[in-house]
């Protein structure tokens, strides 16, 4: 599947396109399919997101996993500071990235 990501304009936080809005949780991402470029242009013009772009991902058991490690690091947070990630209590989160 093809999902859309970018950074929130005000905060810089990593965000994912849910079909109607942007979420900080990658599992909320939907398949943007052939609409990715259109949605990205519209959302950036509306100042809801900064430099959006489409990436490859797959959904496994309801969870979304970006294909590339860089986007998995973006989805979680720095692997060297688990306390600053979106899943500070999850001991398996780092393995999910790698």
């Amino acid at each position, binding site marked *: 599947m093809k999902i859309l990501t970018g*950074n929130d*304009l*005000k*905060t*810089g*936080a*990593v965000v994912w396109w849910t079909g109607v809005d942007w979420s900080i949780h990658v599992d909320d991402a939907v398949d943007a399919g052939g609409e990715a470029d259109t949605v990205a242009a519209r959302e*950036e013009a509306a*100042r809801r997101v*900064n*430099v959006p772009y489409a990436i490859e991902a797959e959904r496994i058991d309801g969870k979304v996993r970006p*294909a*590339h*490690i*860089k986007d998995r*690091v*973006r989805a979680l*947070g*720095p*692997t*060297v*500071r688990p306390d*600053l990630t979106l899943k500070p209590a999850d001991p398996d989160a780092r393995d999910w990235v*790698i």
Partner: protein
Amino acid sequence: MYLYDQYDQAMVDARVEEFRDQARRRLEGKLSEDQFKPLRLMNGLYLQLHAYMLRVAIPYGTLNGRQMRALADIAETYDRGYGHFTTRQNIQYNWIKLEDAADILADLAEVEMHAIQTSGNCIRNISSDHFAGAAADELVDPRPYAELLRQWSSFHPEFSYLPRKFKIAVIASETDRAAMKLHDIGIRIVSNSEGEPGAAFYVGGGMGRTPMIAPCIREFVPLDRLVTYAEACLRVYNRYGRRDNKYKARIKILVHELGAEEYTRQVEEEFAHLLEQGVEPPIAELDRIRTYFADPDFEDGPKSVDRSDPDFALWVERNTVRHKHDAYVSAVISLKPVGGIPGDASAEQMRLMADLAERYSFDELRVMHTQNIVLPHVRIADLHALWSALDEAGLGAPNLDTIEDIIACPGLDYCSLANARSIPVAQRISERFAAKGRTAELGELKLKISGCINACGHHHAGHIGILGVDRKGVENYQLLLGGSEAQDTALAKITGPGFDEDGIVDAVETAAEVYLREREDGERFLDTYRRIGMTPFKEALYG
């Protein structure tokens, strides 16, 4: 240290308000990202993997307690309680909000700091010897010259849109502690046969994807022609540097393609032209700047310490450096605890370092390009008290220039350019060698890790270097041996095929084993490598 005059302060204050307006217009949608990006980059504001990142300039790595405390306050108020000291003697914050950025710049301006020219194709923060003004072996304090060049290069209209970024280092000793020959311009203050001070110019060095060691293009430029000669070097580059190809745009490529001789000829021609224009600041300005760098009031005192406490003795042995006054030393605060993140410091640690600088080091701190902090002027009589305070706060690691003192760029954990993570590799290597108690046995061994070819972690210059690459979406690490960024500058060579994360830690240990097996009396890792060459290492690594 240098203090702003009314012009410095007015310039920085004006820039804050200018950026506040630019950020407001961006947030209101009146500027697109394409329009705003060059404006934010001129103020050190990047967009990185997780958020905006702000890089704050620390000119030649020198700051005082008040400034360090302000950096701590910013970390706590606007970021997530910490900052990252970089290989350019700066500090970066990783979790900045655009809506806060102008307020942060205003807070910085209150303590005579800014983020101007920490990004973009301009002359970046000028770096220098972190022991400047304290080193026993320096000819003079190089910082007045670095400051003069900082003032010349700040907002210089001709050099605001260079073909590519431009980095200058200034030193004043034969020992190079600033990687001088790996800069676009490296300047070493020297004296000629008549004993007059001048500057040797090394031009066209750099790391990145095409590492090069700068050739010396002029061995002696009189100090009252320093700025003029630098301007001539920049003018030739600005005129002929490759603007058509980002990867060939650094001055090192121009010097290499023209040849050092032809580049020098053109610089000399431009220099002669500029001398007629009178671009050099009056020598009175240099004299004015020099007064800010006068020695503090050193006092006589004990020249040795009681080393009966073995932990303290080890720290003194490893982390203090001879000072030009025999009752003082320069003390290095390691930001490399075993298993820690190289260069990171919490707000609490920054405040402690500020307190200790005020109490023990004439209110001065230095950021090292190796991502540690120096208290440059510590009385030997105060060393035990200083160490006790550092040790209690987890800042007493006795590992300067050892395999635990690793330079690591932020890597894929933070940086949008990176291909692989650097920090976890550094953590695992320091843990491996500390656990086996082999750090002291290995002696001086400089290990440097970059998460991509841009080489922010200086991997080309490591006795052991590691370069993270992306191999079909999987992190892979190349091992390099034999680099140096000191006065014996050398570029490291790749050993062979890369390793995965586990494999690279083992590979470093294998290289260390070869060194221990082959070394002769008094040899460092680098000396042994130079004597025996790559072959024994390759045989051990690849069989």
